């Protein structure tokens, strides 16, 4: 019935929505930032554990739609073990993929995150996918304030 939506709602997204990974409060987190999408009411808190400039652990709490939940869940998986610079580079690539500015995006470099490429066709939903990454960006820059995608 929802054939048109298969690019947007891939099985991986349903899976991460049903069973979000790293969905927990982190005691002794080095960084903790809140992300908020006022348009949708999506809200998340991102926790990072750092060792020098390496992200050794990432977790989150919050509530949002399937796209935003899957996006933050996937993100916490993929950034573990990455340096700040590597995470920033992923953010840039992810941003390019979801906003569709680059015609030929190397989806392979994005690994599992490529399942979110479909939001490009749904401008109203892009912010759902990027909220997690804007929050990570703020956490890496050590901006303590809550960030908002508006």
């Amino acid at each position, binding site marked *: *019935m929802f054939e048109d939506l298969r690019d947007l709602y891939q099985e991986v997204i*349903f899976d991460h929505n049903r069973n979000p990974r790293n969905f927990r409060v982190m005691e002794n987190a080095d960084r903790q930032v809140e992300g908020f999408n006022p348009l949708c009411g*999506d809200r998340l808190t991102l926790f990072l554990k750092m060792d020098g400039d390496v992200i050794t652990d990432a977790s989150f709490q919050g509530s949002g*739609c399937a796209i935003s939940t899957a996006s933050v869940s996937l993100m916490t998986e993929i950034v573990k073990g990455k340096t700040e610079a590597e995470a920033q580079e992923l953010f840039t690539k992810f941003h390019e993929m979801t906003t569709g500015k680059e015609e030929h995006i190397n989806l392979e470099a994005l690994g599992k995150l490529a399942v979110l490429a479909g939001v490009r066709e749904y401008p109203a939903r892009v912010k759902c996918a990027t909220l997690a990454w804007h929050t990570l960006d703020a956490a890496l820059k050590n901006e303590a304030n809550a960030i908002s995608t508006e």
Partner: protein
Amino acid sequence: MSGFDVNKIRQDFPILAEKIRGKDLVYLDNAATCQKPQAVIDSIVQLYSHDYANVHRGVHTLSVRSTDKFEAARTKVKSFINAASDKEIIFVRGATEAINLVAQTYGKTNIKAGDEILITAMEHHSNIVPWQMLCEQTGAVLKVAPMNHKGELIYSEFEQLLSDKTKLVSVVHMSNALGTINPVKKIIAAAHAKGIPVLLDGAQAIPHMAVDVQELDCDFYVFSGHKLYGPSGIGVVYGKQSLLEAMPPYQGGGDMIRKVTFVETEYNVLPYKFEAGTPAIADVIALGAAIDYLAAIGMNNIAAYESELLDYATVKAKQIDGLTIIGEAEEKGAILSFTLNKIHPHDIGTMLDSLGIAIRAGHHCAMPVMDFYGVPATARASFAMYNTKQEIDVLMAGIQSLIEVFG
């Protein structure tokens, strides 16, 4: 129902034939804005093709034609809500500007530090923020009458909050987030017993029921044209003449003056005192066309039909496992706000859109209502006179299958 024929009505709305992603459009976002009948579209085309010029300014033929049509529309609005005089009908951009106008003119002159303004827990942001701004400017205090879990005003608490300090009551006639219709006659009588004027936010109520401002005895009634099958960018402040006469103007400029020198300005008479600058001429005239169209069908017929639709939708919705209706007031207009277990309203919105069904997902400009129910957002299907039971069936089938897909 005397001659109410939904199929005939549907023919009058060209957009209803539109295909969305290859599917028949099922438009259920009427509380956000509703679609326009051909008569409204035609009136705009007619004006710009044959009759358009600025109003109240020229002696030439077109200016006279435009002015006549413009003022005829004012009379139509007056009759539609049964105001006592054309002077009580002020055109603004919409309900939002209307409330801001009352806050910044009536409010600023009559409300002082320590005074109270009383609203309810179910207001749209546009009936909260202008009062907060006024409170900031004056030192007045905003009081909020609570509601119960069904989304009904707790009247006894409202009554207790009416105090000697209360200088204005501003209440939504029908809630956009819940559908609740407030007991406005009782509210007005109680406030008047203490000499307190009442503003009704009629943005949602006006397309769904007959409104008679004299019978209600409200002091101000505001609404937007775009929710009444008219154009966007036009709205109305109704105010009792005695109040409007005593209020200072809202904005300064052309049309609102009688005489200007560099020393002083004499303001124009009502309603022009509040209509500075060139108005939305075509939109006012088209709002008049919308009112003609509605009057021919009859607001009571519309209300009866929509109440049937709402009952049907409510029964069907309750049959869906995991669906919670948000807002179950006894007195309720044609709005069905709901949540689904573990499925976020935005996912509901996108999935239904792929089936051609337009609903609203979000906080409906009523964040305090969302907080009250402890949800970030709801999905909302809101009905208009052109919706059908078949469309409700399509909606419910869509909801059933998206629940299955989400698993």
